[in-house]
């Protein structure tokens, strides 16, 4: 099986090439002419022309809020365009409703998983397309069929399971199976690998290649450049809602794409300064709790401790436990040398721990409240004079984070739900920066964040460390932890299985530890 992260993976271009040449002679399957989308005063997509060829994999890259998801939503009838035309196989089409898009064979796997958590995997896969005989659904047949399809795609998923019981990554795979099933001619993936494990990602890539071989056009949106270079035939770059260019993959490189995306060149994404490492902030000894067992590690001032592992390895549970969400059941915690137990979030916050959780939608944000509100939520006790909140200080703090993190918004009073995924992620991080904690726990902080902002966030880590803080960085994205962490711990099924100093081990070594081979 091809592994996208593996340096030694066979070059995918070899078998992608013939299709590309065949496609070039054909008329485009889908063409956008002056497509435009406004949200009130925000021009999310500015008059863009773009064409997609039959059977190509077309990557779209761009900064957070560049308009990628907006483009996808327009093509799938989720939202309506405010201007421009869409040509499907040369004919103008409306694409005003999801049904219309589905009827044309346009399907998408959206950035946020949109499935019904209360229904079974099979029911989700067949939703809107049930097998019916004499007016009655054939539930058994559907479950069997769904299982066959999942097995066929190489996804090991139980078709009879309630979707809500699966991990986000598994749900994403169900969404993929669903989308690729429906006689699709045009399939869009919006950051599909953000929540996938490596092996899940590998399964996904295999599926994408197979679909391409069957003549399906694939649009692939990602912030991960190596995926783009591995999979795509062509790549288009969006910036501020504007299409800045399309390149054949063989005729461009990462530097050029990044420069097109952010309108400047970026020498280095992983920005790591030499910072003096100080006293031990927190130390756990044999800590066990829900989802993890016998974890011993320590974090010192000025140090980034990376936790790597596959999804479900127990890192988030460990972090939540340190933060008092699910208090540990056994083992010891020493905070600045003193033993104590952390029993609730408030206590953790008052001690000086900050946690940016992994799921922005479920854990990180109050979506229907303003940005400023979200940023200040952890510090309202400090914004209060007596019982009352200092309104001016509240505004000042929020505005500072918005400008420091370059959050793209007209005002701190805008609701978080109206921001792009990556900008929402910045709010999740921003809400802890006013807090002045000693220990920062970042759980998947760069999910859905563009390269430019990633670099900003890493630089920000440096600032925090210089101020004497320590950081726990949880990431399922190996290059990130590998490059950033001073100490790297590998988790597997709830256990800490290996610890390495900076660049002490190779990617392969760490991977092997995480997978357990």
């Amino acid at each position: 099986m091809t592994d996208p992260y593996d340096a030694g993976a066979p070059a995918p271009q070899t078998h992608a090439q013939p299709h590309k040449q065949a496609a070039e002679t054909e008329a485009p399957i889908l063409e956008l002419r002056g497509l435009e989308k406004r949200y009130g005063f925000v021009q999310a997509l500015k008059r863009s022309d773009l064409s997609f060829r039959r059977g190509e994999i077309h990557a779209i890259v761009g900064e957070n809020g560049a308009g990628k998801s907006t483009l996808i939503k327009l093509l799938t009838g989720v939202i309506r365009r405010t201007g421009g035309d869409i040509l499907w196989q040369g004919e103008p089409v409306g694409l005003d409703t999801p049904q219309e898009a589905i009827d044309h064979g346009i399907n998408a796997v959206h950035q946020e998983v949109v499935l019904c958590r209360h229904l079974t995997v099979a029911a989700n896969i067949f939703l809107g397309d049930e097998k019916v005989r004499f007016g009655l659904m054939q539930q058994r047949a559907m479950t069997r069929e769904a299982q066959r399809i999942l097995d066929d795609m190489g996804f090991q998923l139980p078709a009879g399971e309630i979707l809500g019981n699966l991990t986000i990554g598994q749900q994403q795979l169900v969404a993929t199976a669903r989308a690729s099933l429906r006689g699709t001619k045009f399939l869009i993936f919006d950051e599909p690998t953000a929540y996938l494990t490596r092996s899940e990602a590998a399964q996904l890539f295999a599926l994408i290649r197979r679909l391409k071989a069957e003549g399906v056009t694939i649009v692939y949106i990602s912030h991960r450049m190596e995926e783009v270079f591995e999979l795509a035939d062509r790549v288009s770059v969006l910036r501020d809602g504007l299409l800045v260019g399309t390149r054949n993959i063989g005729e461009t490189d990462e530097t050029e794409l990044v420069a097109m995306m952010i309108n400047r060149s970026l020498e280095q994404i992983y920005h790591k300064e030499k910072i003096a490492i100080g006293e031990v902030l927190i130390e756990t000894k044999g800590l066990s709790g829900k989802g993890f067992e016998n974890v011993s590690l320590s974090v010192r001032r000025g140090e980034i401790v990376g936790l790597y592992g596959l999804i479900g390895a127990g890192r988030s549970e460990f972090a939540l436990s340190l933060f008092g969400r699910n208090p540990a059941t056994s083992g010891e915690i020493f905070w600045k040398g003193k033993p104590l137990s952390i029993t609730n979030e408030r206590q953790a916050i008052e001690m000086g721990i900050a946690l940016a959780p992994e799921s922005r939608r479920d854990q990180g944000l109050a979506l229907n409240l303003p940005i400023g509100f979200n940023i200040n939520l952890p510090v309202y006790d400090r914004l209060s004079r007596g019982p009352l909140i200092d309104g001016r200080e509240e505004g000042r703090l929020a505005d500072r984070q918005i400008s420091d993190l370059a959050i793209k918004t007209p005002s701190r009073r805008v609701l978080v739900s109206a921001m792009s995924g990556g900008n929402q992620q910045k709010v999740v991080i921003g809400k802890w920066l006013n807090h002045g904690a000693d220990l920062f726990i970042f759980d998947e902080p760069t999910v859905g964040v563009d390269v430019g902002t990633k670099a900003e966030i890493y630089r920000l880590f440096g600032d925090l460390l210089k101020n004497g803080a320590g950081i726990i960085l949880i990431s399922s994205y190996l290059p990130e932890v590998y490059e950033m962490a001073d100490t790297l711990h590998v988790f597997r099924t709830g256990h800490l299985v290996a610890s390495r100093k900076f660049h002490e081990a190779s990617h392969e070594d760490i991977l092997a530890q995480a997978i357990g081979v």
Partner: protein
Amino acid sequence: MSTEAPQKKPMSMRNFNFLFALTLLALLILLWVILAIATPNFGTPNNIANLLRQGSMIAILAIGQTFVIITAGIDLSVGAIVGFSTVTVAWLLQQGVPVWGAILITLLIGLAIGLFHGFGIVKMGMPPFIMTLATLTSLRGVGLLITNGATINITDTGFTEFSRNSFLGIPNLFWMVILVAVPAYIFLHHTRWGRYLFAVGSNPESARLSGVNVPRMIYIAYSLSAVCAAFVGVLLAARIGIGNATQAEGWELQSIASTVIGGTSLFGAVGSVHGPLIGAFILATINNGANLLNVNSFWQRIITGLLIIVIVFFDQLRRRRQ
């Protein structure tokens, strides 16, 4: 390949629902056994027939309500529709409309009310709670206006006797429950529309993206609830022999309570047809038993409230354990 199967394999939803219905049923039967021992009259055929009659109307309302609650909505207007329907059907009968015509027209009016709710929720963006609260208020007014606050006597004895008679030893009213519950069960659990109701309740956006016509499902859910309520209005008119707009006050809350006792979640996407049915008969049994045991009617209220808490608490507990 590391697609970890979920740790402890949670029971499949179908099995779970089934088991839960069984425990509820067990509770109902337990209540019956206790009452049969505690009072000499509970077990008499006469009383069993009474009990079946007494639970019937709330049971039918609860089934209708379930469709709405599964879409994460709520229908507060059912009591008012029942009262209003007793007026329409009585008025029509007194105008000389034949029984089948009067019933049909009443059901159609129910349908119209349900569609109006759907319209308000889908097109006007009203929250279901407020939309149906407003109809509740207005409908009682309309019914009172029609009768000028009085009651309409139904002189058609065939119509009124129907509700008192039995067929094969089972009261006609309970047959009506079966008449509603069986198609409702098939609709909810074995047709795609039933599935879509769950999908809409679970995640309307996802349902929409799957090509489910979400507005249509909302229209269907509220129409079903309103038609069930209109049907109950017809049955009530037959039972009390009059049309009176103020009848069935508070039945909306009883139907919601039955539905929730029957394992339906007010957050949507969880529910069945058999659950609310059992829930309605549990409530009816509590009242019937309290009457037979000569429990003070004030105590009866207190006990009902506490029992609701206890039953729903155990439901929640079981759910969380799963």
